[in-house]
C-alpha cells in the first residue's frame, strides 16, 4: 500500500496537519464505540449517573458474564459464523458468475436485469418477510439455518453483482484472447484466470454481505421459530431489551461481543479490501 511512490508529497506541515486531523476524526468516530465498551464494564446503575464521567473507577465484567452465561451462547455464536460464512462464500461465487455475464457479454435485457437486481432492496424487508416465510415453510426450511442463509444470499447478491462488475471490467480483454489462443477453454479461463484476478474484489464485497448477515435480527426471529438451538447471536442480544426494564449494561456487552468478530474479520481482509476495491474503478 505504501509502494505507490505516491502522488504529490504534501509539504511537511500540511501533512502533519492532515495526520493530526485524521487522528482527531478517528478519535471522534471511535468515541461512541468507546462509550459502548465503557457502558458494558460499568457497574449496574452507573450508566445513568449524572456525572457522565468518561471513565469508570470500578470496572466489572458482570455484564459480559450475563451475556456469555446465557444458555447455548456458544451455539448461537457458532450458528452465526456458519450462516455468515455460507452467505459470504455462496454469494461471492454466484455474484462472480453473474457479474461476468453482465460485463463480458451483451445481450437483451442486460440493463433491465441490472436494475431489477436492485429492486428488492428498495422494499421494506418487513413486507417481504411474509411471502418469504411461506416460501421457507413450503420448502421445509423453517427452523433450519437454510432459512437464514438463502434469503441473505438473495439480499447480498444485487450489491455484490453491481460492485463486481467494475472488477471484472478491469481485467483486460486481451487476457481472454490470449488464453483462447493458448487453447484454454472458457471455463478454464473463468476459474483459473479471471477468478483469481477478481478475488480481491470478491473479498471486498464479502465484507458487506458479512456485516448485513451477521447483524440481522428480522429473519433470525421470523424464520427460526421453534428450535432455539438454531438461533443466531442477535437473539442473545435481544434478551436484554425488555420493554419496561432494559438492561443497558447487557445490551452494550452483547453488542461489544458481536462487534469484535466483525472487526477481526475486517483486520484480516483489510489489506485486500483496500487493494481490491480499487479495481472497481476501471473500465
Amino acid at each position, binding site marked *: 500500500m505504501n509502494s505507490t511512490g505516491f502522488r504529490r508529497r504534501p509539504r511537511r506541515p500540511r501533512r502533519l496537519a492532515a495526520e493530526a486531523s485524521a487522528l482527531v476524526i478517528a478519535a471522534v468516530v471511535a468515541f461512541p464505540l468507546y462509550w459502548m465498551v465503557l457502558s458494558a464494564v460499568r457497574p449496574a446503575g452507573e450508566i*445513568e449517573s*449524572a456525572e457522565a464521567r468518561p471513565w469508570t473507577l470500578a470496572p466489572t465484567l458482570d455484564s459480559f458474564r450475563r451475556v456469555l452465561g446465557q444458555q447455548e451462547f456458544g451455539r448461537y455464536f457458532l450458528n452465526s459464523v456458519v450462516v455468515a460464512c455460507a452467505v459470504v462464500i455462496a454469494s461471492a461465487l454466484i455474484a462472480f458468475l453473474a457479474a461476468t455475464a453482465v460485463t463480458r457479454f451483451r445481450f437483451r435485457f442486460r440493463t433491465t436485469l441490472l436494475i431489477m437486481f436492485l429492486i428488492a432492496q428498495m422494499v421494506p424487508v418487513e413486507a417481504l418477510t411474509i*411471502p418469504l416465510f411461506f*416460501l421457507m415453510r413450503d*420448502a421445509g426450511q423453517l427452523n433450519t439455518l437454510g432459512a437464514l442463509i438463502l434469503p441473505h444470499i438473495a439480499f447480498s447478491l444485487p450489491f455484490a453483482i453491481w460492485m463486481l462488475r467494475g472488477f471484472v471490467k478491469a481485467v483486460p480483454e486481451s487476457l481472454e484472447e490470449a488464453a483462447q489462443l493458448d487453447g484454454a477453454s472458457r471455463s478454464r479461463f473463468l476459474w483459473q484466470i479471471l477468478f483469481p484476478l477478481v478475488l480481491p474484489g470478491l473479498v471486498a464485497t464479502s465484507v458487506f454481505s458479512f456485516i448485513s448477515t451477521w447483524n440481522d435480527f428480522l429473519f433470525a*426471529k*421470523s424464520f427460526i421459530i*421453534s428450535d432455539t438451538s438454531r438461533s443466531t447471536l442477535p437473539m442473545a442480544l435481544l*434478551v436484554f431489551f425488555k420493554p419496561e*426494564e432494559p438492561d443497558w449494561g447487557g445490551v452494550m456487552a452483547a453488542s461489544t461481543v458481536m462487534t469484535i468478530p466483525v472487526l477481526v474479520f475486517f483486520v484480516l481482509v483489510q489489506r485486500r479490501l483496500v487493494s481490491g476495491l480499487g479495481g472497481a474503478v476501471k473500465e
Partner: protein
Amino acid sequence: MKLAARLVAPMAALALAGLTACAPGTSDNSSATKDDRTGTLRLWLFREVSNEPKEKVVDKVVAAFEKAHDGAKVKVEYIPVETRAERMKAAFNDPKSAPDVIEYGNTDTAGYVKDGGLADVTTEFNGWADSKDSDPTARTSVTVDGKVYGAPFFVGVRALYYRTDVFDELGLEPPKTLDELTTAAQRIRAARPELYGLVVGGAYTYGAMPFVWANGGEIAEGRGGSYASTIDSDAARKGIETYTSLFGDDNCPAAKCAGMGGNDTVTAFAAGKAGMAIGGDFSHAAVEAGKVKGKYAVVPLPGVKSGSVAPAFAGGNNIGVLKSSTHRTLAVDLMKGLASKRTQGALFDAMGFLPTYTDVRAEAAKKEPFIEPFVKTLSSGTKFVPVSPAWAQIDASLVLPTMFQEVVSGKKDVDEASEDAADRMNDAFSSVG
C-alpha cells in the same frame, strides 16, 4: 463443494414453490382434532435477563407434570420477549413449529385470539379450584367476549416511588390526593431545582392512564369487537389535563420530559434526578441498583379523593394453550401446573413476579414488605386496556403518547388532541370489525 450440494435441494424446492404458488400464503390453522395423551409438549416461556431462578421453578413443575402423566414429555424453550411478535405470528402460520403452551403478554390476548391462535379453555378454567381466587382484572386479561383463553401467570402494577430524604428535608408527607401530588411535585422542584418534582413522560402511557382513570375517564367502552373510544369524554379530559399540567418548568420541563417513556422516568429516579416517579414492582431492582438505594419508599398513587387510590394498569403475563395443539388435555394440565398457586408463589420467591391470586399475593406481601403498596394498589381495583385486537395497532401507532405529547408540546389543546386520538382509535376499532 459440499455447501453447493446442500443448497441445491432447497433451491430447487424454492423454485418449484415459486412456480406453483400464486395466491399469497395462508395456513390451515383450524383447531387440531387430535388429543394425544402421550408425546412431547412444546412450552415457550419468556427469557429473563437472569433466567436461572425461573428455569429452576419451571423445571420442578415440568418434572411433576411428567411424573403425573405417563408418556408425556415437555420441551421448554425460552424466547426473548422482543422476538415474541414475529415468533407468535410464525407459530400461528406454521402449526408444525408451533408450541402447545405459551407465556404471553396480557395486552396481546385479544390479538392472538383474533389471529386464531389461542384455544378457548373456559370450561377447564372455571372448573379449576385455583381459579376461584384469581383477581378480577387478571381474569379480564384472559377473557375475550366472555370466553377464557388462558390462565393469568403474574401481574405487574405501578405505584408512586418517592424520595424519603427529600420529603423529610422539605417536611412533606406522601400525597393523599392527585392535587397534593402536584403541589408536592412543585414544592420539590422549587426547593431543589436540580430535581424533577414528579418525573413524568409524554410517552409513558401506563404512567399517565391512572390520572385519566382516577378522574373517571376510560380509554374506550364496549365489549369485544364493538369498542368506542371515550378518551375525549369530559372525565378523561380532566385526567389528561391533570397529567399534562405536570409538564412544565415548575415540575418536569416539557423539552426533556415530553419524549420520556416509562423506563426513562424510572432511570431518572434511580439516578437521583427526581423527587418522585411512577414505577412498577418490576422496577424495584433497577431503583435498588441506583443512587437512591435506601432513600426511597413506595405508596399507592393517590386518587382524586383523599384516601383513594388511582386505578393502575394491571400488566403482566398469561399462560395459554394453542389451538393447533394436538395434545389439548395435556397442554391444559401443563398450563394449570404453571399458573397454579404453588408455582406462582415459588416464582414470586425466585423472580419477584406478583401472583395473580389475592391470597397468594397477601402471603407474599408478608414476606416482602416492599410489595405491600403494589398489593394495595391491586386490591383497590385496577384497569385494563380494551380487550380488542385493535389495541395492537393503537399501541404500535402510539395514539396515546401522541395525544399527550401534542398537548405537552403545545401543538394542540386537550380537547383537540383527545378528539383526534378518539378518532384514530375508532378507526382502528372499526377496521378490525
